[in-house]
Every structure is written in structure tokens, then in C-alpha cells.
């Protein structure tokens, strides 16, 4: 199955390096522009009557949560491709994606906690969404731990890819079960969510920043894949040098 010329940077490492050399900075600049625009419109929006200025944390927190899930989809997709096609580039992409996704998840949890303290009076509550995101972080960490523990890189990559796919199947199950658990054990929480019908004056900055986050994710992912490819090349060269 040959990809068209425009897309073959996804398959051929040399083409990937050539394309990512300009694509990563472009995405980074786009991310900066979008996040900047979103923050500017967000800061200039009127303060929420209920939450005051702390509603601005929402602009950092919510897109991070969206990206944490998007990151796992990317991880599972890259793992699937690396297993099916035995593709080194897909394997490098999966390895590069995991810490990035874990970082966004941790950011979501941390900023959520900072937002929760003034809102609910609690740093942490065991409700459905928080518990689900915490389990997602554990999935990421398990992937990274498995990858790091096996010495042979090819073997580690394939085992981790199997785990990523098992996790992808399990993630909806975990999400459903945690939601169900939450309705069974109604906590004493008194928080009200930011509002399913978000006012337009907040929705636009939120979407801008979310797009900016996604562009940032793409840029960082490309940079990390490049670093992984260089690391592999360096390792091959050092092994060759040691052999002489």
C-alpha cells in the first residue's frame, strides 16, 4: 500500500525528517497565535458572575483534558499501525506520544485541582470525571513503565503497542464503569459544572485555545519523534563504532 507523495512523509523516515523540519515550527507558531488570541479574548471577556476571575483557569484546564484523551487516541492509533505494518516510524511516534499525553493529563488534573479549591472548597473529589482522568493517567504511566522496563527496543515497542491497544479497548469500559459508580455513590459534592450551555463570550476563547493546544500537541509530537529518530540513529552509530 503506497501513500501518495504528499502523505509519504508518514511512512518514509527521510521524508518525515524533511517535512517535520518546517512543519513543527509552523505548527508551533500557529499554536502560539491561537493560544495568544484565545487568552486575549478570554481575559477581555467579562468575569463570570459566579466564579469571578478564576473562570480563566477553565481556559487552561478544559483543553488540556480534551488533549489528554486525544493523546491516547493518537497513542493507540500509532500503536495499531506499528503492530500491523511493523513500522519503525509508527513505533517511534507511539513512544514519543506517551509522555506528551501523560503531561497533558497531569496538567488537566493539576489545573483542575487548582480550580476546584476556590470553586468546591476541595483540592480533590472522587467524582466520575476526575476518577476517569486519573485512571487515564495510570494507563499512560503503565505504558511508559512497560516500554522502559524491557531492554530490547523492538520487543519493548511491540509489547507496549499491545498494551496501548488493550488500554484503548478498556478505556471506554473504565469510563462507563466510573460514570455508573458515580451515580451509585452520590457524593456530597455541591459543585455545579461551568455550564453545559457555555456563553459565547467564553466559548470562543475556549475553542481558540483548544485549537492552539492541538497545534502545540502536533508540534511537540513532531519534535519528539525527530528526537527519537535521532536517538535511534545515534545508538546504531555508537554500536557500530563499538564494533570496530
Amino acid at each position, binding site marked *: 500500500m503506497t501513500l501518495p507523495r504528499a502523505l509519504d512523509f508518514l511512512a518514509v523516515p527521510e521524508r518525515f525528517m524533511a517535512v517535520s523540519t518546517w512543519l513543527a515550527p509552523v505548527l508551533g507558531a500557529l499554536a502560539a497565535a491561537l493560544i495568544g488570541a484565545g487568552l486575549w479574548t478570554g481575559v477581555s471577556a467579562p468575569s463570570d458572575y459566579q466564579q469571578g476571575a478564576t473562570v480563566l483557569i477553565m481556559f487552561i484546564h478544559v483543553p488540556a483534558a480534551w488533549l489528554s484523551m486525544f493523546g491516547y487516541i493518537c497513542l493507540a492509533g500509532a500503536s495499531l499501525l506499528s503492530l500491523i505494518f511493523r513500522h519503525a516510524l509508527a513505533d517511534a511516534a507511539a513512544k514519543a506520544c506517551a509522555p506528551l499525553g501523560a503531561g497533558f493529563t497531569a496538567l488537566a488534573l493539576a489545573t483542575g485541582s487548582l480550580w476546584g479549591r476556590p470553586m468546591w472548597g476541595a483540592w480533590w473529589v472522587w467524582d466520575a470525571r476526575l476518577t476517569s482522568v486519573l*485512571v487515564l493517567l*495510570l*494507563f499512560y*504511566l*503503565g505504558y511508559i*513503565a*512497560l516500554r522502559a*522496563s*524491557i*531492554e*530490547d527496543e*523492538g*520487543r519493548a515497542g*511491540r*509489547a507496549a503497542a*499491545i*498494551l496501548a*491497544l*488493550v*488500554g484503548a*479497548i*478498556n478505556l471506554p*469500559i*473504565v469510563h462507563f*464503569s*466510573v460514570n*455508573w*459508580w458515580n451515580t*451509585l*455513590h452520590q457524593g456530597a459534592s455541591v459543585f455545579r459544572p461551568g455550564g453545559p450551555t457555555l456563553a459565547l463570550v467564553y466559548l470562543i476563547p475556549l475553542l481558540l485555545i483548544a485549537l492552539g493546544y492541538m497545534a502545540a500537541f502536533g508540534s511537540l509530537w513532531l519534535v519528539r519523534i525527530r528526537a527519537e529518530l535521532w536517538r535511534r540513529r545515534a545508538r546504531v552509530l555508537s554500536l557500530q563504532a563499538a564494533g570496530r
Partner: protein
Amino acid sequence: MKGFLALMRREFNLAFGGGGPLLALTFYACLVALLPLAAGRNPTQLGLLGPDIAWLALALASLLSLERLFEHDYEDGALELLVMGPIPLEAVSVVKALAQFLAINGPLAFAAPIAAIALGGPVSLAPMAILTGLLGGVAFAFVGGLGAALALGAKRGGLLVAVVVLPLFAPPVIFGAAALDAVRAGQSSLMALTLLAAYAAAAVALSPLAMAAACRNALD
């Protein structure tokens, strides 16, 4: 068929031999005994959480013997023979996980009601504790086997298996605890049990495929 029976006999001998069930039961007893030492022996307080902790301790105790599921065969070359043999590796994985369930999770399931009552739970909880222990034990054995296969040949195998497998244990833990709470509240536990059984069935159906893939990967 003869080969399959021979494999079953081998796996059961390996799982039951060397004090397998006794070790798991002793660990479970230690966990259960330590809880009042940590949480205080006030009966009402203990009774609120006790049966749920007994249920969670089931999951933790089944983590213990997971590492030996594939590791010894991998180290002494028996796994390579099994791969080359007439029985598909997926079926071998099923037999191994089944032996694990019968030797470790089964006995633990029958110790669970004792633990639940000892920790202050109502006696009416006993049948449900056995049922959730058995159904959950199937899930723990098969999903745990998946973790054991993935961690083959890795450093820090035991802890790695736990880290990989515990997030996957979250749904059965939730469903089992919901069933126990339903019995305590006098409500129907049917939904929780059905979901627990569904998770166990999915584990039995899907994890042998992943276990075999992981074993083949480790042998490359």
C-alpha cells in the same frame, strides 16, 4: 486432545504445586488482619468499609502469583516448545489462566466471605462475596495473565505486572463493590453482577489473543 489434557495436567500441577493456593490465602489473611490494625477495631467503622476492603484485597492477592505464569517457562525454554507444539498458543494461554483461576482465585473467593464477616460485614453478604469473588477472579486471572505475558523478560517483573494490570482491574473492582453494596442496601444486585460477568467474559474471550501475541513477541 491427548496433548491438550496433558497440558492441562501440567499447568494445574504447576499452579497447585509448591503451595500456590496456601501462599495466596496466607497473604490474603495477612492483608485482612492488618486492616483493623490500621483502621481501628471500632465495629461500626470497620463494618462500613470492611467487606469492600476484603474485595479489593482479593484483587491485590491475585496479583502475587501472576509473574510465575509465564516467566519460568520463558526462562527454561518450555515456552518455545509450547509455541512450536500442536496446541495453539492462544489455547495454551487459556489453560494457564484457567489453572491460575482454579488454584489462586478460586480458593480466595471462598475465603472472601470469611474475611468480609471478620471485618464486620453482615452475614447476608457471604453468598454475594463468593459470587463476586468467583466472577471477579476470572477477570483478575485472565487480565492478570495478560500483564504477565506483556512483562516477560522485563526487569522488575512483579511490580511492572502490577502497574500494568491494576488500571485494568478498575471496572471489575467497581462492579463487584456495587454488587456487595446492593446486597447491603437490600436492592437488586443483578445489574452489577451482569456487568461483572460481562467483563469477565470479555477478558476470557480477548485476553488469550493478546497473551499469545505478547508471548510470541517475547520469544523473537
